[in-house]
């Protein structure tokens, strides 16, 4: 009897935990008796195969259904409750968010320079699953995409206006203005610099720091330690085998809740904004019919993308997205105030670094409106998104070293944000200051990008590209989000039957439509953002887990 094998990689002699060979090359597997999928139920209701984590799927489905029904039925009662919860978080607990986010950024930056940066995700000999271009496009499209479209123009302009207005005190001696730090009353150049620094601060290291922490801890614990790819695995160094019980269920359910409601409500609100844009540009009626059609369209394309899978669906769509965004960026740089943008990139980067300590200071802030209303709001938002984005990033990052991972997830996107915000912000501010155009400032928030493009050449084409980008950015968030929810509710399995991921994408669209027509989109989005607080704590545990996990890994040569 002849024996032959087509396995092109010879077995590594190293053993991980007992009886289980290490991942590709030396790595240090965690020794556990838990079998991934042991708590799953497998069934074929109506001829459709499913493979789900019984508790996580059941409880999160019931909670989601309950929240949707409650919000629809008692909108007037629920909205103030969610609002009060969220405003308590951002006013009283601002320091928690600011301090937490600083910890994430500092740890991520420090790790780049330590020997731990040499550890390779997936074992010392693992090779990357994606090219740099495909990998980076997916990171970026899942991470912020859509926000850049809306805030690229409106945020620098908003901060510029408040900074120029300077400090104003109310009767109680507290500041009533919304300017960052001490403002720049009457100082035009100072206001521009401050507004750009503040904007980049919100789109720079800190959001990506949160994503990097979730992504890196999950990647290490899945690919190097052999634990399932779900949020609970981060807690292994703290809770040990208890993560397979209720503490773990709770973390996963919370992640499903934050991701699904985050996606569904942004889908609803995003459709409102896209529809406003379509109405403004092409006079398409801004009605419920348009909104529902938009959501249906986005859902259908997202469905196609998840059916094609990560490689051929999500990756290609993300690359298309990057290509279009790059074209729009280059166009704005070319026809906008090119020289100002070019010098602005360096000035703003310096200004960001210079103002970073003051802007990120968690205590003793005098600019309460700015630090609570803007910064804490953003931080809660990024952190609530981080389970979804982080998990997706983890899934596609096997084969990269920790250093490579952190540079690509933290440093490169920050620089990209600097360029993007500078190009769009400078062009808009230039229109206001040097060309005396005030329409952009006066326009509704969601129309400011289009109003700015109107004052540049080729308006019809660029605005159309803008709308397409808004929609495609939604699709790239929606498809990766559905994959993440599916894998959490399947107990960390990424090879569960296809109909499950279809189910989540459909639910997302259905919730968006129900809340859009029944009201309560904003309320439920607020509810999703409140998960930012528990996840700040989860991420802090993640920081500990990363260090603990990396310390026990053999270094790559």
């Amino acid at each position, binding site marked *: 009897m002849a024996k032959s*094998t087509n396995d092109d990689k010879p077995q590594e002699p190293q053993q991980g935990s007992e009886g289980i060979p290490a991942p590709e090359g030396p790595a240090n597997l965690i020794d556990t008796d838990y079998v991934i999928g042991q708590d799953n139920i497998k069934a074929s209701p109506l001829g459709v195969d499913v493979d789900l984590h019984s508790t996580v799927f059941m409880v999160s489905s019931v909670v989601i259904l309950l929240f949707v029904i409650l919000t629809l039925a008692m909108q007037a009662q629920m909205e103030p409750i969610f609002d009060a919860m969220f405003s308590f978080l951002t006013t009283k607990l601002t320091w928690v968010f600011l301090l937490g986010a600083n910890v994430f950024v500092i740890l991520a930056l420090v790790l780049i320079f330590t020997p731990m940066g040499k550890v390779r995700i997936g074992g010392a000999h693992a090779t990357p699953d994606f090219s740099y271009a495909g990998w980076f496009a997916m990171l970026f499209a899942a991470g912020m995409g859509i926000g850049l479209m809306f805030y690229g123009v409106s945020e620098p302009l908003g901060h510029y206006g408040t900074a120029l207005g300077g400090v104003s005190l109310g009767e109680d001696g507290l500041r009533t203005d919304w300017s960052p730090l001490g403002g720049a009353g009457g100082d035009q150049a100072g206001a521009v610099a401050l507004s750009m620094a503040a904007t980049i601060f919100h789109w720079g290291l800190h959001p990506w720091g949160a994503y990097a922490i979730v992504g890196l801890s999950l990647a290490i614990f899945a690919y190097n330690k052999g634990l399932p790819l779900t949020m609970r695995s981060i807690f292994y160094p703290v809770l040990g085998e208890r993560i397979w019980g209720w503490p773990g269920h709770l973390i996963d359910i919370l992640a499903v809740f934050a991701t699904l409601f985050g996606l569904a409500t942004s889908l609803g609100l995003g459709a409102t904004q896209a529809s406003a844009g379509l109405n403004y540009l092409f006079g398409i009626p801004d009605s419920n019919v348009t909104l529902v059609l938009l959501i249906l369209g986005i859902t259908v394309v997202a469905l196609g993308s998840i059916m094609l899978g990560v490689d051929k669906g999500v990756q290609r769509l993300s690359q298309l997205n990057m290509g279009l965004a790059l074209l729009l960026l280059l166009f704005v740089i070319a026809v906008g105030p090119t020289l100002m943008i070019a010098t602005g990139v360096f000035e703003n980067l310096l200004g960001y670094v210079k103002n970073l300590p003051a802007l990120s200071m968690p205590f003793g802030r005098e600019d309460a409106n700015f630090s609570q209303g803007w910064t804490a709001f953003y931080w809660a938002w990024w952190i609530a998104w981080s389970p979804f984005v982080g998990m997706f990033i983890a899934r596609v990052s*096997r084969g990269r070293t920790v250093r490579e991972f952190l540079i690509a997830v933290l440093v490169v996107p920050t620089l990209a944000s600097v360029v993007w915000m500078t190009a769009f912000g400078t062009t808009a501010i230039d229109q206001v200051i040097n060309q005396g155009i005030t329409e952009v400032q006066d326009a509704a928030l969601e129309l400011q990008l289009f109003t700015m493009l109107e004052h540049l050449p080729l308006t019809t084409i660029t605005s159309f590209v803008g709308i397409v980008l808004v929609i495609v950015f939604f699709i790239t968030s929606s498809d990766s989000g559905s994959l993440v929810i599916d894998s959490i509710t399947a107990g960390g399995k990424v090879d569960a039957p296809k109909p499950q991921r279809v189910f989540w994408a459909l639910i997302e669209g259905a919730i968006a439509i129900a809340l859009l027509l029944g009201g309560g989109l904003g309320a439920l989005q607020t509810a999703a953002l409140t998960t930012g607080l528990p996840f700040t704590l989860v991420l802090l545990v993640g920081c500990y887990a990363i260090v603990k996990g990396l310390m026990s890994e053999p270094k790559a040569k």
Partner: protein
Amino acid sequence: MFNKIMVPVDLAHIEVIEPSLKVSADMARHYQAEVCYVGVTATTPGSVARTPEEYAQKLEAFAQQRGQVHGQPVSSKMICRVDPVADLVDTLVKAIDEVEADLVVMPTHAHRHLDIVMPANGSQVASRTSASVFLVRPDANE
């Protein structure tokens, strides 16, 4: 007539693939052919194995065990994918060329209405390869 039979296996669902294993063993004996067992797995830890290497070892052990049953030469090939469910058909079609198989024996589920929107993997593989494909229904034993 056939020199190398490729048998895609799902180590998580051995009971489902049992009939196709039997068919492939019979045909291997009949044509004196080699059997190559192909397993497609996720890069992430799963229910069968926590690392790709562990999966490869289990697959090879499985192939050897099957070899004891039918007495023909065996080999195994593990393929690691980020999204194995979505990429299954592509991966298998590519694997047919790589292992130079001239016959594929694979399990397939009974026809159902969902096939209209999500066609069964077996029929998709058959329509995209020049090798012969034998689809075995799960109740073929009965």
